[in-house]
């Protein structure tokens, strides 16, 4: 299991378009991928393959998100997802 923190670099945050791309990207990996707001007191986990849970993260531009990947391709998954989120 690998984890990394990233700052959302999309100007509109993880909104419809960015969220949809993120879900599509996450679906291309075998690993389980979850996101949570590391800047929040009550971190809710979001399944990166669920558009609704990603949207409900309400991660705006500049918010800090931790990405955790667990599975055979976790390194690759973490790398490309963090790269995408950083914008």
């Amino acid at each position, binding site marked *: 299991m690998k984890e990394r923190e990233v700052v959302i670099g999309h100007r509109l945050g993880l909104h419809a378009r960015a969220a949809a791309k993120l879900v599509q990207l996450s679906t291309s990996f075998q690993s389980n991928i979850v996101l949570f707001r590391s800047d929040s007191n009550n971190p809710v986990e979001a399944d990166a393959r669920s*558009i*609704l849970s990603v949207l409900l993260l309400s991660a705006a531009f500049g918010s800090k998100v931790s990405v955790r990947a667990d599975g055979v391709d976790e390194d690759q998954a973490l790398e490309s997802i963090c790269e995408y989120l950083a914008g």
Partner: protein
Amino acid sequence: MKDSERIIHGVVASVGAAIGRALRSFDPLFVSFNLKLRPEQVRKEVDRFRGSVEKSREQLKRMQSQLKRKSGPESSFLIDAHLLVLQDRLFVDRIIDKIENEQINSEWAIQQVSEDLFQAYDRLNDDYLRERRGDLEDIVRRLLHNLHSNPLPSFKKLPYDAILVGKVVPPSTLFELRSQRVVGLATETGSPLSHTAIMARSLEIPAVVGAPELAEVSSGDLLIVDGDRALVIVSPSDATLDEYKNRRRDEKAPKKKGRSAASAPSVTEDRVRISLGANINFSEEVRPAITIGCESIGLYRTEFDFFREGKQPDEESLVADYSLVLKSAKGAPVTFRTIDVGIDQKSWDGVNMNLGVRGLRFCLENTDVFKKQLRSLYRASVFGPMRILLPFVSSVDDLDSAHEIIAEVRQELDLKRLGYDPGVPIGVMIETPAAAQTCDLMASRVDFFCLGTNDLIQYYLVVDRSDRSVVHLYNPFHPAILRCLHQVYTLLHPTGKPVTVCGEMAADPPSAAVLLGLGFTSLSVSLAAYPRIKRMIRSVSYAQLRDLAAQILKMQKPRDVEEKVRATVYRP
């Protein structure tokens, strides 16, 4: 844990009371059924849901490719989001879990899961994201639509009595469901003049409309719709349920069992004849009233017909309406009350205490409208016995002005050689304290009186029944009311003019017994109350009630009066 009973106020659209489970109309177009499945149906239901997801996906894919051709790849991401919802386990898997674990139908599972998500969206501090719930709504509509075009055969018959609840319920929905177990209707918006309300009345389904607090009601909640009192009771207590079940038995008995209760002679135990008429709001109710055995229509409220389509009808259609009422009454006399509402009044509930232009005051200021109604009534009078009742009269001057207008109308009809019954009795509604105090002064100018206890009590006790903070003070057993009624009887008895009590006081057995005791031997009540009041009349002794009235007139507290009356009426 059982929720506590809650009362939601609305506007009457169709009388009677019904008990059932809320069946929420989730979208004006689609009704979501809350259906408990049998274990062997679950697998098929999951397939049905998956079928709807698959169909929705195909539709979206088609849309996406059309959109791409038309405006390039840029805009198709909006549809990506929809497609992703359809494969989102937070959504799809949870719905399937619900169908399997709770053994409920897809519509209901979709609604429950999406309502949770909608609430999560509404809690977000992000305006843009909050707006995203629209995408989810869109998907939900699509899924429901695709389920709708592939209905479960078992949905044709609901497994329980249902009350349709929604922001609006289209008349077609109500009509399509009529043969099923839809026993009531309650909507957040709408008026008694809407087509849905008219449909409810013609199907004899109790209905309350214009009750925005219904938004908090979900499918499956136990409800009572009381079209006689303009309210909906959510999660009724066992005591309330029993009360309504008894009432419902009363109401159904006459329809099913040869209408024995309602059509039995209206005489007391000691053989005193009591006249019992029906209060009617809409022409569709006249026929059922006559069918259950009502001898007269003691109060026909004309304002609903008058503003039926939200605009004033022309004279010819009014004549047609009133003729129809008289023909449906088959010779039973009908007392038409002229319109009792300000034309610009938005609230039709009639319970707002209004100290302004109401009833006859409105008619005297809008003589064109008043004359049109009077002409129509007179022209219809050849079709059956009719009486004309003037509402909200507060002085002899009002009455004289009304008589002048009536005389003009009759002259016009004479000139046009239009036939009418010149002997139509004219009466006054006693519902203002002024009329109660001076009814003897009016007696020489009228043929009959009606007592409207609802308004009279409101004005005497200064209690607006639509104001929840004071509604508990509304009490027909208050000594002020008893004295007022006693005074009206004392003033009018020597004049020999007939008096009918047509307020709700006449519809509640204990307070109706008080009216009999005070000497009022003519009552008129809603159809729903008719059987129970008939039964009360047949079970009491008039002489005993006269004694009772003499006693309670000396009592000090409403509660003591009520206890004493109940002990007499419900004696073992």
